[in-house]
């Protein structure tokens, strides 16, 4: 190895930040390519030539990047997967050996925890970019800015998982959120999309403001903005200093939990989730369900375990564990019951993602009892990312323009008409339900195991009951696909053809199956990535 190169702090700094820099620079390049690329208007011309309605409700806006979705999607996917590969390289070298990155601390902490999450969100973003490459042209959403926005949102998610200071935490959170608001409202001529974007924006900004006030209170109580410093200052409080500041710190804790639970989409802060997920273009929905949620859980873990690790705040009598346990139980039960009553498959998947937030929170609660529980949360988020994107990808694959798969009825007889697409859909739903040998099974297994080790038996029992309830609505899709026939004259879904969507599904399927058969490598990585481990 070239020791002179590796010992240069500048090079090591670049290497340590390479996952983040790859996305930042790549996003800028993509934005330039989108702005200066020649729009392809062939699609609009073709529509006029065959006498289709000239000013339809969708896709009549021709601007820079129009018709270039396929090229831009490839570019975005390359950038995002490059970010994932840089994360793996950094992981193999070991972030603790790259000491040059200490100069960006505490604003960005390049540790195994953040590198793990960097990989997960880049993987999720890359698969979402490929899905969009098929979905946007098919559904006549000729908007090239989707891809730079997607890359910058993923950058925000990476930075959020790496944030070690209240300041960078807030900026990263907003970087991620502002982009996602735009991605939700991408279909500018759709009333539903604009309503979804409006609701998500209003509630998201409200939650961010609540969180920010909590951050200001923490700064006031301790005089520090770096998370580790606040944690030390809180641990050092006693006597009079504690008397005066206890209320302030507890309010800050509550505001931070509320703000982050909003971003995760956990009950009772989930009101926006089904609407925003349903109104958004499906690749955006997939991205929101995985990357935004994953990054929010990452920062929640860091806040709880670094700032509020004090035994008074982390205890079951006076601290956050009972609050999070309540959120977990509510999320699972309420989301699962409502999901079972949905007629739209996309809305069902939205509620299912709320229920999964509940399972994740079981693991987060268990971290108050053992360090190992963190590993189960990390592993769960990885399995959840690939399974959920696979399910949304299969939903995209199942529908083409004006023959989309919306309700269960649309999917009746789908298994007989299109066995391959139906098989893919079934596979990812089975993983979400947690049936072996898929990734979802081991994800749930390790979370429940961590909760048992933490002696939270009642949470495990409630989680298992919910897994059974959840299986009902996942299997309902399978029943419709394989055992029902469409009613005469009723519309039914026809699959689209797209190499991008197929590639995305193959990547997701490899991970789901790989993690389901050989979970050891990923689990060891998750164990190595825990905070304070």
């Amino acid at each position, binding site marked *: 190895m070239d020791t002179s190169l590796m010992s240069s702090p500048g090079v090591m700094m670049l290497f340590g930040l390479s996952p983040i820099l790859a996305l930042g620079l790549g996003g800028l390049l993509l934005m330039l390519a989108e702005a200066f690329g020649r729009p392809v208007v062939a699609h609009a011309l073709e529509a006029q030539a065959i006498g289709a309605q000239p000013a339809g409700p969708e896709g009549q806006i021709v601007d820079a990047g129009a018709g270039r979705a396929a090229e831009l999607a490839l570019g975005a996917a390359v950038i995002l997967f490059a970010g994932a590969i840089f994360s793996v390289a950094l992981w193999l070298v070991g972030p603790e050996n790259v000491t040059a990155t200490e100069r960006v601390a505490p604003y960005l902490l390049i540790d195994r925890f953040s590198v793990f999450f960097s990989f997960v969100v880049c993987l999720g973003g890359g698969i979402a970019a490929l899905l969009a490459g098929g979905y946007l042209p098919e559904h006549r959403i000729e908007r090239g800015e989707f891809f730079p926005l997607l890359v910058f949102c993923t950058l925000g998610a990476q930075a959020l998982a790496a944030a070690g200071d*209240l*300041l960078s935490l*807030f*900026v990263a959170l*907003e970087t991620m959120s*502002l982009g996602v*608001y*735009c991605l939700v*409202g991408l279909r*500018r*001529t*759709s*009333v*539903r999309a*604009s*309503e*979804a*974007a*409006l*609701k998500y*924006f*209003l509630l998201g*900004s*409200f939650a*961010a*403001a*609540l969180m*920010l*006030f909590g*951050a*200001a*209170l923490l*700064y*006031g109580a301790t*005089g*520090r*903005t770096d998370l580790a410093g606040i944690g030390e200052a809180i641990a050092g409080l006693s006597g009079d200093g504690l008397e005066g500041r206890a209320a302030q710190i507890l309010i800050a804790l509550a505001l931070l939990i509320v703000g982050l639970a909003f971003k995760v989409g956990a009950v009772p802060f989930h009101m926006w989730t*089904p*609407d925003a997920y*349903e*109104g958004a273009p499906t690749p955006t929905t997939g991205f929101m369900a995985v990357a935004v949620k994953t990054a929010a859980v990452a920062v929640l873990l860091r806040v709880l375990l670094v700032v509020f690790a004090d035994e008074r705040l982390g205890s079951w009598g006076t601290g956050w564990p009972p609050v999070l346990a309540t959120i977990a139980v509510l999320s699972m039960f309420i989301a699962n019951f409502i999901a079972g009553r949905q*007629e*739209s498959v996309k*809305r069902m998947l939205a509620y299912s993602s709320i229920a999964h937030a509940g399972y994740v929170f079981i693991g987060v609660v268990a971290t108050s009892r053992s360090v190992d529980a963190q590993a189960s949360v990390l592993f769960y988020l990885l399995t959840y990312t690939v399974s959920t994107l696979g399910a949304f990808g299969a939903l995209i694959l199942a529908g083409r323009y004006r023959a989309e798969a919306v309700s269960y009825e649309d999917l009746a007889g789908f298994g007989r008409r299109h066995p391959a697409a139906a098989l893919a859909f079934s596979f990812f739903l089975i993983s979400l339900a947690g049936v072996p040998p898929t990734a979802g099974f081991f994800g749930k297994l390790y979370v429940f195991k961590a909760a048992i080790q933490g002696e939270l038996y009642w949470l495990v029992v409630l989680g298992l009951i919910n897994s059974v309830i959840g299986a009902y609505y996942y299997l309902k899709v399978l029943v419709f696909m394989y055992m029902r026939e469409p009613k005469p004259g009723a519309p039914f879904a026809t699959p689209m053809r797209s190499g991008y969507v197929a590639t995305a599904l193959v990547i997701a399927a490899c991970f789901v199956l790989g993690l389901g058969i050989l979970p050891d490598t990923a689990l060891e990585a998750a164990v190595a990535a825990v905070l304070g481990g």
Partner: protein
Amino acid sequence: MALDLVVEHYVLLSGLIFLIGAVGFVTRRNVLVQLMSIELMLNSVNLALVAFNRQHGGAMNGQMFAFFVIAVAAAEVAVGLAIVLQFYRLRATVNSDEADGLRH
């Protein structure tokens, strides 16, 4: 005769403004007023940050934080107004209760 203002007064004022913003957001149904309420909340945070900075002094973390909050709030309003405008074009209303097309 100088009024004897201490940091606590500023923090109390900031908390009050924050509450006004939060209550405004929850009770009003005009999207523009809701946006203004969010701005009020963000600005109350700035006031609190600057006041706390005076209390703690040192590295000027609070003042720096306030600058970042101002910048992010500007970006948020830009995106927010675009979304409100799009909603208004399609629905000809700025009432957030009328964003009900997604309920079944």
